[in-house]
């Protein structure tokens, strides 16, 4: 383990069947007005390649906090989170940026598209950060827009899109670099039922096709139905962790 922890973020993912993400004794505390608030309290999880998993629980249970730590946007107070062989605690800013840039896609509740960029440019952005050459970039963006069915919207700005369309752009942006992991924080919270199902069906397809690991943070029943594994959090602890039979019917 010690050996793995020292690996730099840019290196290849571990063996296919190994755990992609391991948390052990993970604790996260926030200083709030004089005392420490414990948002995560001893999380032990193994998440494998290709999973379609959800962190489920009421608001304030620690879902976003855990997702942020897995995405190396935040660090554990104690315990560890090893993502793709890197202990996130030991990553500096550059290395954690590199880990996200190369291996992790984010999807947010509020889409977080760049308003001055077109749909095409929004999707292209992560590839520019990767320094991918123009030809490959164009092919990848075109393909990602096909996945989410927005080819004809490529030249529009986010302001011209509906919520469902915006979130599809966000999915394309997260998927365009074919990352190992996609972290989606309440992706359907601002969407109606139909759009939610569309988005989720798309994700299931990409999950099977590309073997991308999806981790959701959600308390939305529409999302939970699609999950193959449900990890229930309450007050910063895992209270249930079980396999599920997904229900793809609408």
């Amino acid at each position, binding site marked *: 383990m010690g050996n793995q922890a020292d690996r730099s973020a840019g290196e290849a993912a571990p063996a296919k069947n190994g755990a992609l993400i391991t948390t052990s004794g993970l604790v996260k505390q926030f200083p709030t007005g004089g005392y420490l608030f414990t948002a995560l309290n001893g999380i032990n999880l193994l998440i494998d390649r290709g999973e379609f998993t959800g962190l489920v629980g009421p608001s304030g249970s620690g879902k976003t906090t855990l997702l*942020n730590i897995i*995405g190396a*946007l*935040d660090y554990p107070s104690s315990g560890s989170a090893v993502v793709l062989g890197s202990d996130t605690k030991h990553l500096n*800013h*550059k290395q954690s*940026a*590199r*880990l*996200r*840039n*190369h291996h*992790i896609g*984010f999807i*947010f509740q*509020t889409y*977080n598209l*760049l*308003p*001055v*960029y077109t749909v095409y*440019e929004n999707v292209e*952005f*992560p590839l*520019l*950060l990767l320094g991918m050459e123009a030809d490959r970039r164009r092919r990848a963006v075109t393909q990602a827009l096909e996945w989410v069915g927005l080819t004809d919207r490529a030249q529009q700005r986010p302001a011209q899109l509906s919520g469902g369309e915006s979130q599809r752009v966000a999915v394309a*942006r997260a998927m365009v670099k074919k990352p190992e992991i996609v972290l989606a924080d309440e992706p359907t919270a601002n969407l109606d039922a139909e759009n939610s199902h569309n988005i989720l069906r798309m994700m299931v397809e990409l999950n099977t096709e590309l073997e991308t690991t999806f981790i959701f943070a959600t308390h939305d029943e529409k999302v939970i139905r699609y999950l193959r594994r449900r990890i229930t959090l309450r007050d910063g602890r895992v209270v249930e962790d079980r396999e599920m039979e997904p229900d793809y019917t609408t």
Partner: protein
Amino acid sequence: MIVKLAFRNLMGAGLRTWLNVIVLSLAFVMIIWVKGMLEGMNNYARTAKIDSEVGGGQFWHRSYDPYDMLTYEESHGVPPPALSRLVERGEAAAVLLTPASIYPDGRLQSVVLKGIDPGQKIVNLPASFLAVETPGAIPGMIGNMMAHQTKLEIGDYVTARWRDVHGTFDATDIRIVQIMRTTQPTIDQGQIWVPLARLQEMMRAPGEASYLVLAKGAETIPEGIEGWIHRNPEYLLQEISDMIQMKSVSMNIIYSLLLLLGLLAIFDTQVLSIWRRRKEIGTFMALGMERGKVIRLFTFEGALHGIFALLVGAIYGIPVLAWTLRRGLSMPEITDNIGFAIPETLYPSYGGQLVIGTTILVFITVTIVSFLPATKIAKLKPTDALRGKQS
């Protein structure tokens, strides 16, 4: 990528961007304009003074002090052979000064009588007009400012009173034979030029001079001359440099304020934009953009104001400045004593150094005020930024 993003964000900010850009471009153009004007003024004043007064430097009688008229009576002597040889060879001109009183229209006025050889070719002064016979009087030449002030005209007689070397008062009439057009106040105001030999006679000081002017570009300066002090052109022009310097201080304040205003506006825009777009900053980080890169992005976005300002400034500045170069600026007629020559039409001088220096100054200051607020990003936690919270 960063260029496009910064460009679009700036364009998206619309009016605010253009206000910043316009204020900044005004400062930019004004710096060049004002500095160019002062430089043109400096050039003119120096050239005029070299031409009419300074030549290639001067030798002063040991006690001669141009600022103390009262000492003129004692401050002259016969130049040593090393200097008088120069005068004989036409490489220098001797000038003798003495205070005097004249009575135009019966009112008393203090003047300086300046004796110069009508045949001299050293300074640009129409002394040859003094080579005329004016029976019963001494020929005298004055400048246009002096003429304006005393209302003397060509052909007028004016009585002058002076003291000779023995302290004896004497008086004679001076006939104005020429009014010279000049912008150089130091050869004009309060003075009357007369033939050197006549003044020496009047003062009973044969062969004496207060100072000698060397020919322009004089290379061999006699050394170790007792009782006479060499003053090089730079020394003699120092006064102009000082005065231009003083004038430029007030000008500097004006455009510095304008520049400061532009910089402050950009600083403010940056602070606001970083605060408003912290969620976007969080997104950049989540997408794997390094912090340093995010800071660079925002710095560049602010610095782009500077580039726009330079472009906008060039669009209206180049025609305006070019026009002033071609046509010059007509200057108000100044009659009070400002100590150096002001041309009727001023041609500014915009050197490459000035333009490049100003461009660099604007660009660097804008980049600094853009960078400072952006450093706040380094302290922003990505999770807080994503939640739209300012840490």
